[in-house]
């Protein structure tokens, strides 16, 4: 039996002996690629070790999750407590000595699990088994045993069950390699794992790649054409932390966060090396690489196993549809903790699947007064209640249920509706204090915090402290808008329908719109103070910029204004319903970027609010003139009715946006509380970083807090979930689950041609160059007249609306933030334009018809 196999030895490429990872590394070295030297502790060595263990019981079938967890804990414990056979330990020590010859006294290696079923074409086992860095000779045997033990984590066992990997044939080799102290490292796919197209996807970060593989950092991301290695897309990630050679996590310096990790030449080298890996294996590869002292190393290569296929999850029974109104708040999958909080707070109607929020439709469909299938119901809702089933049959139970629900709703919400009429603009201002007070309560748990603030008002609680309820009652805006439309259609049919939208918008006091104005004021101040402008121009991190501003005497007025801005708007963030995302009061860099963006714009171009008001006044004049022309004796009364309904609509649209402004404090409070809990767990050595709490399930968090779980219990889960989140982020979630629905547009022109169909959110026509912005914190430059094309928008995007000629958004609805703000600013906006950020590229000339809800590609930029 050969227990130790050098990576260059004959037969090292046999997966049955070296494990999947070891065999692949041996093949790469044989193909002449630069792979760190090392050896493999073979599968036979593992078998030798197991032979010395007593009671090696087989995995029983039919275990429930708790029993499986208990079985695995028992098995791991026995592996870790069984001594390494002396002859085997001697062989390992000898191999280590040979490897370390000439490499100095502080030679360290990486120890990586290499199961025999690993890194195959069907199952990669990515993130399932342990890897250790910075291992010296004294701890090598322990780390090898720990790798063997990692075969017996519950998630690894479940993974094997899911992928049909037989337990009996499983063995674990371990790769021991020289540790490369990487300056930059990353992963590369030689085929896009999402689209299955053959462009290369490269992700890179500072330091060791484990931080990237774990999903701890937002890396730089490149999409590179296979044919000529031309960069098709480039996204510079924030890379807040790096993993040092000893496995510790360090903050990345201010200057390095926004700096690209790879030079063009280094990127080309990585791509070429990855294509060589692909040639060596004859198929698309998922390659881990590292750059150290300008030398490129290949650390791992395995087949891409996720090409254009959805990661497998257990789907719930029933019919579910992607909840679009909520989806606009999350650009990616939501964390397991938030999923648990939302599911338990809202109830069984809401499910988080693939990290996305789905709504169960059975209950809602039952309220329809017409008989509908699931598909017909979804088509009806997705078309904003425009597309009814072809065959319309009354559903008597539906009518009865709807009547009962409406009656009950009116009885329950009646006083609330009356209480929210004609309230002053500041009536919800006290909510932020309440949120802060509860977040500071050391005894409150996250679920209680969420339900107390969001869903469980006291009987005598003032309405200003119930922003979610206010938000629900403000849906009346749509009813009043409908009334205005109806009256205009009947009494002034010659006027364009879009006038109703102008009449119902252009209010003072919309917080999100005023935020834009505040940014404008800060930008004017910065523009008038050159030292401030220079600091902002050079800003790469908030800390750096703020510390320079504090050292600049002329910046005092600007800093005071910024402080005031953050005291009002600091609870906001990009993707602000996601508590994982840092708020502006924690990291004001996005605010500084928005100010910088605004500085480039002339003051005259940035008067959007006035533009919205002017559009409303013009619409009012047009309607009054049309009514006067009708010579009806009722013209005066008709105008008063229209004006009243429009004023109501304006008020409720404002209420909806302002209540949202208030209820975002809940998620800020949740983050504050979780930060305290997470920091406590880090202090007790149970978590590595406080924000790992977001990757826990709610019961796990509770158990960790009371000492019912240990770090070892959750660490594997955290790693596996990071990997899962990464997979989910790459996939496009299905619109429906449990049934199929065809929501494709009918027109061939729309399907593939220059016309993109969406929903009208704000009327008007605008033609101009497109500017695709994925993350305004990174790329916030939008020139006046450019058309903003975005994956989603939340209030944090508002300042971009100040300079945009129009907005095109991938998700959203008439009542979503993008539409509301665009209407306030009187600019065209089309929402729900599927894949617009992929089909439109920055620089393309496009025409946005906000009234028809279409976007036309007039000319494309030459790539």
């Amino acid at each position: 039996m050969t227990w130790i196999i050098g990576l260059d030895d004959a037969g090292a490429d046999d997966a049955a002996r070296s494990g999947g990872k070891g065999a692949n590394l041996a093949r790469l070295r044989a193909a002449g690629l630069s792979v760190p030297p090392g050896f493999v502790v073979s599968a036979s060595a593992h078998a030798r070790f197991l032979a010395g263990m007593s009671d090696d019981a087989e995995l029983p079938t039919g275990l429930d999750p708790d029993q499986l967890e208990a079985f695995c804990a028992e098995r791991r414990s026995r592996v870790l407590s069984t001594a390494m056979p002396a002859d085997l330990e001697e062989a390992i020590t000898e191999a280590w000595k040979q490897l370390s010859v000439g490499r100095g006294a502080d030679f360290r290696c990486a120890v990586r699990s290499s199961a025999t079923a690993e890194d195959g074409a069907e199952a990669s086992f990515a993130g399932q088994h342990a890897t250790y860095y910075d291992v010296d000779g004294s701890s090598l045997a322990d780390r090898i045993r720990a790798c063997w033990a990692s075969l017996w984590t519950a998630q690894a066992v479940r993974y094997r069950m899911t992928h049909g990997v037989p337990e009996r044939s499983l063995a674990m080799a371990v790769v021991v390699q020289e540790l490369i102290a990487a300056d930059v490292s990353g992963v590369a796919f030689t085929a896009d794992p999402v689209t299955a197209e053959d462009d290369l996807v490269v992700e890179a970060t500072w330091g060791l790649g484990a931080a990237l593989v774990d999903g701890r950092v937002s890396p730089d991301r490149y999409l590179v054409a296979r044919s000529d290695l031309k960069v098709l897309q480039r996204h510079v990630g924030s890379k807040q932390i790096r993993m040092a050679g000893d496995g510790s996590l360090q903050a990345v310096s201010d200057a390095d966060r926004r700096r690209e990790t790879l030079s063009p030449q280094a990127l080309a080298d990585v791509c070429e090396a990855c294509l060589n890996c692909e040639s060596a294996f004859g198929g698309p590869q998922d390659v881990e690489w590292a750059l150290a002292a300008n030398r490129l190393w290949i650390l791992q290569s395995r087949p891409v196993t996720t090409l254009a296929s959805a990661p497998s999850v257990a789907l719930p029974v029933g019919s579910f549809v992607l909840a679009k109104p909520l989806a606009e708040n999350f650009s990616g999958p939501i964390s397991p903790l938030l999923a648990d909080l939302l599911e338990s707070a809202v109830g069984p109607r809401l499910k988080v699947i693939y990290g996305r929020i789905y709504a169960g439709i059975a209950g809602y469909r039952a309220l329809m007064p017409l008989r509908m299938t699931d598909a017909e119901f979804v088509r009806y809702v997705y078309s904003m209640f425009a597309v009814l089933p072809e065959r319309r049959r009354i559903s008597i139970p539906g009518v009865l249920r709807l009547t009962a629900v409406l009656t009950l709703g009116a009885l329950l919400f009646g006083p609330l509706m009356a209480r929210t009429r004609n309230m002053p603009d500041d009536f919800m201002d006290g909510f932020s204090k309440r949120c802060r007070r509860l977040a500071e309560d050391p005894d409150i748990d996250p679920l209680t915090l969420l339900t107390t603030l969001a869903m469980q008002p006291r009987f005598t609680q003032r309405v200003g402290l119930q922003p979610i309820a206010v938000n629900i009652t403000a849906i009346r805006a749509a009813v009043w808008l409908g009334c205005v439309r109806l009256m205009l259609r009947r009494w002034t049919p010659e006027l364009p329908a879009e006038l109703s939208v102008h009449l119902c918008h252009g209010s003072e006091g919309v917080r999100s719109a005023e935020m834009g104005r505040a940014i404008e004021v800060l930008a004017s101040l910065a523009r008038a103070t050159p030292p401030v402008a220079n600091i902002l121009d050079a800003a790469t991190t908030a800390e750096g910029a703020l510390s320079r501003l504090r050292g600049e005497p002329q910046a005092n007025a600007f800093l005071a204004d910024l402080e005031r801005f953050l005291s009002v708007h600091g609870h906001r963030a990009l993707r602000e319903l996601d508590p994982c995302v840092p708020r502006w009061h924690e990291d004001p860099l996005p605010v500084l970027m928005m100010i910088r963006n605004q500085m480039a714009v002339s003051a005259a171009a940035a008067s959007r609010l006035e533009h919205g008001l002017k559009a409303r006044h013009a619409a009012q004049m047009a309607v009054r003139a049309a009514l006067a022309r009708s010579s009806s004796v009722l013209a005066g009364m008709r105008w008063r009715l229209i004006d009243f309904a429009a004023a109501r609509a304006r008020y409720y649209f404002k209420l909806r946006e302002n209540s949202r402004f208030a209820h975002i404090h809940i998620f800020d409070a949740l983050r504050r509380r979780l930060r305290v809990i997470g920091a406590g767990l880090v202090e007790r050595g149970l978590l590595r970083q406080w924000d790992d709490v977001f990757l826990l399930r709610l019961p796990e968090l509770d158990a960790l807090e009371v000492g019912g779980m240990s770090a070892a219990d959750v660490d594997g889960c955290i790693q596996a979930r990071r990997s899962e989140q990464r997979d989910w982020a790459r996939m496009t979630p299905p619109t429906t689950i449990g049934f199929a629905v065809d929501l494709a547009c009918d027109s061939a022109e729309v399907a593939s041609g220059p016309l993109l169909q969406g929903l009208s959110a704000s009327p008007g026509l605008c033609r101009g160059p497109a500017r695709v912005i994925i993350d305004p914190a990174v790329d916030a430059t939008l020139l006046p007249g450019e058309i903003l094309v975005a994956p989603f928008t939340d209030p944090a995007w508002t300042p971009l609306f100040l300079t945009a000629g129009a907005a095109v958004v991938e998700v959203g609805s008439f009542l979503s933030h993008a539409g509301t703000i665009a209407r306030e600013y009187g600019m065209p906006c089309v929402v729900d334009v599927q894949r617009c950020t992929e089909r439109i590229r920055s620089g393309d000339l496009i025409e946005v018809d906000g009234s028809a809800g279409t976007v036309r590609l007039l000319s494309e930029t030459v790539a």
Partner: protein
Amino acid sequence: MSALITVVVVLAGSYLSMHCVAALYRVVDLGYAFEREKWRVARGLVGWGGATLLLFMLLPARWEGVFAISLLGYVLLYGALWSVIRILLALRWRRFRHASSAFDDGRHAHAARSTDGDQPPA
């Protein structure tokens, strides 16, 4: 006809009761700026209270009982609905908490059996 008038009186009573409740709530809702908003609060109380009283006085005697019952009935119904919903929500979250603590107990048992170190793998 009598049934129709009864329905109208009940609806009017409930509607006015709803607004009276809301007007009373305004004392709480606008209490944070009472000095500034006292007239708005007073307007609501006087307006809706007055309208209710006026209608009560104008109604023929035979409908007064129905009107009074619908006024009071709505207040009781509102309180009952509110309480029931709060109880249902609290029960649901309690069930979740129970499931959560069952999970904890299971974990405790496993942790006691496990001799794993606390050091997470790198």
